[in-house]
């Protein structure tokens, strides 16, 4: 009846997961009661959960990412504490099998459920606004994608309460992840959660490539698209081509585990190197899925706060697309040491270094954008500068790792861990924090507190360096990664510095929450009345904050490279807006619970598969199929916003903007 699921799966005998579980359940319960008391469920249901509005979906993605960041960080600080405690005679507080689950969960969560939803959240929120359109190409599918990602996250967190998580590292290499060596449910949690969220990611990619290539405002030609849209396009193209490979390799491992196939087993002719190749054919491009949109965010920030157009726009676009392609040709640098031979290693080593060229081009472009500009040192600019300093070093250690002989020395050491955290924190996380600060007022109508924002930045910046620079040193001394116990006591000082660094990052995460709450409390002082709090250059600043569901009353006509900037300057010069257009009724997609319901059945089905509860799995599949057919059968997918409403809103917006522009033209 319940497959492998027994009372033994609940961690009654292990205090750490048990207490964590109880605390989390109590916290969730408290939040639930609070929302019920306030009567907010209908609002949440109508405005967010079932919404097909790309802006709302973007916000939900980012909330998911922030929540999971807390979880991923909790894992990180536990690892740091263990490595500071378990030195020499001491064994620390985490038994090995638990420690192994933690680093696997940390890596998996940070990449799949923090970085990915964060990046996708920004693309959701920003891309349609910057393209000057009303939504993504497939709004309902967008909602489905989000909820599939959320189900994956749910399943991973469930492994904390029921059963266990994989002890295989974040890429679950066989043969360790095969049934023979990992008989428990841990690897199955990993596989099922990633498969479900992976489907969501492919759908997202389809959605955004279509949106960017086929729905843009009139006049928005390719070489007028903001750089963030270009990077989003590149990122989604990579997703579209890389995620199916992940699906295949994980499905093959599932077949091995569930049905006794022999893809990667030691017996029956299986070949685990096939897994390495396939997973890294996905894995290396994945890094660029994350970092290219981050580069896009830095580009927007650099241009806006320097008060200048982006330097070398075309070279930026070219570099982005070059990286998009080259990222597919370097995967083998992840296993230089596995005997491919000198020639192959040389080819892949050189290919890896070539990516440095377009990346270098970008760094110069940002520098030249700031050079000679009137730079305003806001929080996003702090992150931009912090990024350039950090990322250059991370890139250089990457070039080191791309030299096969060097890689033979530091392979699988803490040097590698330091390198990838440096590029991913310095490159991606800093950009996400910058973007969060930059677009927050657009989403909610008020800016975040600057002082606290700067405090958060310093916590990340200082904390990051303290936490990871020691790992370079330890890596050179031969410290391998994933160690539950440290036998050399002379490493202790460095490990303690790393712990302090992680704690400072933790303080930064706490301050992020404080900043949010404080900013909400004092929002009246920082309202964004005009919709353009930073004197922006791209179309999202043309509409009010928060924008109406349909974004623009009429789609903007785009002239010149900087769609909004040109328009704004003309208006300031002439001290008047363009003539009032002829408003029309607008057709918008209706809300739908399809996404949550499909995701509910997907999660149910996934849970059943993990625990071998086959009847429930079949039930889940039937449910998902039924809701799909039901959805396809409906006729009403759009509702019309009457022209009176559009006109009234637009007139109000024109009045506000006229006032604003008038003030500006007085002051210049």
């Amino acid at each position: 009846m319940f497959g492998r699921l027994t009372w033994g799966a609940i961690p009654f005998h292990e205090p750490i997961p048990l207490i964590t579980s109880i605390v989390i359940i109590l916290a969730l319960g408290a939040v639930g009661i609070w929302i019920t008391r306030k009567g907010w469920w209908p609002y949440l249901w109508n405005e967010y959960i079932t919404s097909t509005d790309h802006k709302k979906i973007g916000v939900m993605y980012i909330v998911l990412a922030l929540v999971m960041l807390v979880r991923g960080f909790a894992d990180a600080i536990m690892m740091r504490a263990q490595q500071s405690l378990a030195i020499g005679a001491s064994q620390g507080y985490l038994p090995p099998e638990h420690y192994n689950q933690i680093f696997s969960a940390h890596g998996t969560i940070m990449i799949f459920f923090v970085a990915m939803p964060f990046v996708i959240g920004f693309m959701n929120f920003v891309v349609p606004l910057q393209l000057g359109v009303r939504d993504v190409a497939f709004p309902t599918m967008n909602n489905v994608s989000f909820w599939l990602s959320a189900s994956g996250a749910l399943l991973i967190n469930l492994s904390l309460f029921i059963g266990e998580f994989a002890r295989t590292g974040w890429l679950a290499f066989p043969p360790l992840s095969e049934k023979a060596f990992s008989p428990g449910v841990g690897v199955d949690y990993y596989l099922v959660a990633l498969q479900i969220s992976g489907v969501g990611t492919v759908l997202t990619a389809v959605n955004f490539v279509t949106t960017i290539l086929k729905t843009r405002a009139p006049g928005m030609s390719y070489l007028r698209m903001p750089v963030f849209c270009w990077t989003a396009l590149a990122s989604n193209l990579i997703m579209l081509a890389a995620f199916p490979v992940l699906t295949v390799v994980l499905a093959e491992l599932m077949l091995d585990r569930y049905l006794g196939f022999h893809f990667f087993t030691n017996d029956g002719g299986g070949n685990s190197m096939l897994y390495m190749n396939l997973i890294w054919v996905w894995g290396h491009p994945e890094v660029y899925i994350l970092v290219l949109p981050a580069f896009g965010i830095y580009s927007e920030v650099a241009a806006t706060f320097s008060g200048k157009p982006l330097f070398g726009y075309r070279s930026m676009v070219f570099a982005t697309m070059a990286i998009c392609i080259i990222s597919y040709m370097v995967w083998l640098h992840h296993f230089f040491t596995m005997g491919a031979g000198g020639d192959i290693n040389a080819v892949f080593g050189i290919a890896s270094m070539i990516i440095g060229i377009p990346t270098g081009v970008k760094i110069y472009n940002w520098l030249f954008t700031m050079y000679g500009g009137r730079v305003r040192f806001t929080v996003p600019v702090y992150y931009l500068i912090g990024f350039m300093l950090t990322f250059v070093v991370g890139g250089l250690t990457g070039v080191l790792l791309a030299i096969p002989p060097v890689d033979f020395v530091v392979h699988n050491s803490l040097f590698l861990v330091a390198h990838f955290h440096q590029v991913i924190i310095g490159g991606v996380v800093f950009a996400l924090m910058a973007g969060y600060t930059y677009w927050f007022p657009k989403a909610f109508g008020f800016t975040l507190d600057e002082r606290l924002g700067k405090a958060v930045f310093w916590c990340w910046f200082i904390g990051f360096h303290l936490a990871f620079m020691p790992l370079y040193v330890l890596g050179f001394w031969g410290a391998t990664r994933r160690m539950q116990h440290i036998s050399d006591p002379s490493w202790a000082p460095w490990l303690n510095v790393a712990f302090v660094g992680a704690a400072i990052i933790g303080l930064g995460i706490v301050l992020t929450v404080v900043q949010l709450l404080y900013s909400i409390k004092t929002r009246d002082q920082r309202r964004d009345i005009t919709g353009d709090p930073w004197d922006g250059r791209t179309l999202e600043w043309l509409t009010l904050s928060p924008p109406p569901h349909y974004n623009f009353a009429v789609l903007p006509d785009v002239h010149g490279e900087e769609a909004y900037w040109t328009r704004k300057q003309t208006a300031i010069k002439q001290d008047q807006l363009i003539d009032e257009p002829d408003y029309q009724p607008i057709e918008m997609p209706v809300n739908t619970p399809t996404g949550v319901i499909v995701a509910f059945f997907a999660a149910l089905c996934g849970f059943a598969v993990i625990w071998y509860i086959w009847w429930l799995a079949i039930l889940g599949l039937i449910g998902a199929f039924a809701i799909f057919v039901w959805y396809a059968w409906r006729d009403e997918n759009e509702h019309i916003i009457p022209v009176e409403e559009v006109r009234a809103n637009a007139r109000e917006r024109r009045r506000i903007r006229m006032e604003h522009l008038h003030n500006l033209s007085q002051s210049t």
Partner: protein
Amino acid sequence: MSTISETPALGLTHLGSEDTGLGHRGPESKSIVVPYGFWLFVLSDMVLFSALFASYATLVNNSDGGPTTSQLFHRDLVAVETIALLISSFVCGLAMITAKRKNMVWTQIWLVVTGLLGLVFLGIELYEFGTMIAEGAGPQRSAFLSSFFTLVGCHGAHVTAGLLWLGTMMAQIWAKGFQPHIMRRLLCFSVFWHALDIIWVAIFTIVYLIGTLP
């Protein structure tokens, strides 16, 4: 019943007020956007099959002492299978033509024939799988057979999904007529069906033809 006209995907009512000379006049109409998105999805499916082909190519010689390709595959059986699928793709094209002319009877007839040929294909495949498993050449036997069953079975699963889709499409056309959104779906279905054909030609060549070379 709502009347859905061919409007651009979103931001529908804006008539590009000015030609920029760059050929971009705002969002494309739904009849372009929907099939385009679906076509991208089909491309990602092709990538999925490429990974399966790569697995097969890596493992094809790892038969672990078990049966090998030339002992297992029969060209004539696969030839019949292939012809059934190719003809069904052609018939699917006929269904599209008649659907464009809003001819209910013939559209349904051609769709039924498409589906029946698909069933023939699936039947032969299942028969082949069944005999192989009965002979002790199931997917658990060796890495080669694991990859064979996964590659060919994944295609078969796609065909099965296509048949389910075909059934709902026939019901929708019957109940709702040739409305624009139904027509778009039908177009997507035919793209899917033809794509399965292309993948099958690759399977036929790489697995069966090469596998039975003397």
